[in-house]
């Protein structure tokens, strides 16, 4: 049975304007950090968003939570449009969503103890009666695997992993139905990474938590997420069930990312066509397919005209013109 969508992102764009040299806004240029992105997330589902730095994945995460002004498109949370910015809707979004950040220290106020940071959420959102706040704080700390005594410490006297757990506990204090985790393990040791990932997996199951997991580490996404969306220069170039995408990537960019995952096995030789160079400047996007300057399979047809339109087959979509087996925008059964 299909659950109804918890979050629908429909054609969302975020543009940043860069001030030009001339007065009165002349010479102003804009870049699309998020470019017509469409996504769906069901309750209890984990969606990974992957891509290189600068691909717009963090901006997308922030725009979904209304922390970045969208220049177009809509975000619907639990059937309620939240991108319009109506106050009541935003308040509801704030009460039911939370974010976990990359830098475990930077995400916590250095002047507040762990317990204070968690208690603040409970106070602001009136989650529990005032008298029960200390007990609830201890409960949340225990839930994320911290001893309640650590609540008395400030971030400076906690380790990175402990800080990240405090960040997760603070997010959980909201009783969220959706958590957006932005590179939340990238700054942690590998062993701690595993613990945080396991924590998320447990919470997702026990609390029916929708999770958007923004990462550049594909191995972690593969482990944690049901579906994965690959972003390149503000666009989603491929999306589908994690295992399908990892086993048979349809977009050359996805294929390059996957072939670049380092293997533990020393005899494994990394794929020959690793991604070269950096993505082009989003201020001046290449014509045609934005990936063509780095694409190992690029042909003349990729180098001009409009960006390729989306192709779909069951549960998957991608934007590459070279895949001639599937006609654009027409569903096709794949066994």
């Amino acid at each position, binding site marked *: 049975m299909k659950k109804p969508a918890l979050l629908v992102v429909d054609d969302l764009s975020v543009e940043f304007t860069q001030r030009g040299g001339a007065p009165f806004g002349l010479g102003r240029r804009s870049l699309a950090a998020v470019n017509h992105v469409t996504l769906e997330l069901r309750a209890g589902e984990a969606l990974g968003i992957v891509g290189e730095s600068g691909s717009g994945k963090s901006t997308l995460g922030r725009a979904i*939570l209304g*922390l970045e002004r969208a220049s177009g498109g809509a975000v619907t949370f639990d059937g309620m449009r939240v991108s319009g910015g109506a106050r009541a809707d935003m308040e509801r979004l*704030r009460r039911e969503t*939370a*974010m976990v*950040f990359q830098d475990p220290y930077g995400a916590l106020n250095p*002047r507040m103890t762990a317990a204070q940071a968690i208690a603040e959420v409970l106070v*602001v959102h009136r989650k529990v009666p005032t008298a029960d706040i200390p007990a609830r704080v201890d409960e949340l700390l225990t839930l994320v695997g911290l001893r309640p005594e650590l609540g008395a410490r400030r971030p400076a006297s906690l380790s990175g992993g402990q800080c990240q757990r405090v960040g997760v506990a*603070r997010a959980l204090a909201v009783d969220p139905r959706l958590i957006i985790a932005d590179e939340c393990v990238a700054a942690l040791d590998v062993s701690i990474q595993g613990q945080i990932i396991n924590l998320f997996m447990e919470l997702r199951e026990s609390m029916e938590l929708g999770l958007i997991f923004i990462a550049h580490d594909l191995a972690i996404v593969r482990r944690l997420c049901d579906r994965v969306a690959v972003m390149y220069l503000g666009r989603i170039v491929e999306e589908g069930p994690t295992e399908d995408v990892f086993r048979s990537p349809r977009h050359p960019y996805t294929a390059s990312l996957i072939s670049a995952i380092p293997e533990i096995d020393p005899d494994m030789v990394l794929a020959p066509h690793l991604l070269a160079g950096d993505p082009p400047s989003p201020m001046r996007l290449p014509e045609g397919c934005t990936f063509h300057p780095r694409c190992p399979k690029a042909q003349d047809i990729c180098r001009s005209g409009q960006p390729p339109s989306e192709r779909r087959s069951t549960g998957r979509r991608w934007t590459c013109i070279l895949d001639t087996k599937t006609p654009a925008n027409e569903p096709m059964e794949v066994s």
Partner: protein
Amino acid sequence: MTAIAARPLYLRRFPGRTTLVVGLTVVGLMLLAALAAPLIAPYDPVFQDGTARLVAPSAAHPFGTDNFGRDVFSRVIWAARVDLQIAFLGVVFPLVIGTTIGTVAGYFGGVVDAVFMRIVDVVLAFPYLVLIIAIIAILGPGLKSFYIALALVGWVSYARLIRSQILILKSADFVLAARSLGYSHSRIMFRHLLPNALISSIVFAMSDMVLVLLGGASISFLGLGVQPPTAEWGIMVAEGQGFITQALWMTMFPGLAILLLSFGFSLIADGLGEWLGVKE
């Protein structure tokens, strides 16, 4: 780690500790002297002994007497009450006003920021002391006018300082986290941003106390601040200048008191700055 953290602060070593301790001792002793003035001062600070005018320092009058036969030592001690009050109140009002304005301007940016910062520019365009004297001249002489003038003029430095800190801090993840959790603007500004931005202002306030103290003394010297016969170091220096060749002690000792207190505040400012890593 925990063993070190558990040691009280005064036993721990940290950069700037010696400076801070010396500064705190100097200011602390002067504060103590001011509080205990009735016990320490041998004479009433305004009592005029017609038989002992311009007496040089001696056992009976350690700092000598002035042209009215008042004991300079007693006056210097009593004056500490007035001058410490000037230093404190003269800094508190600008600190509070400037910090609030700077926080709001830095956080909201845009038009609010532009308006406040242009006001700051206008105030800074005038020489500090001249502006204060002008305001006191309008309001009438006295300490109250002095505090009002300081509040009107002094807040700009704090506003600028805090604003620059807020601008750096407001893009920090913990501020984004606070926004994502739906905290109100005032909570984000005053619970999250301000406590992290305040350190440099506190350090600046300590060195500002020196300026205010000297400013207060100058204003009183000009007859616009504390009025005679109240004992205040600035007035005492002013009164003594006519007798500087005959009775150097009349100006020297209150002058030294100003110097010592300023020195103490400067050391506290430096020590705090070094300890907390704040560059001025």
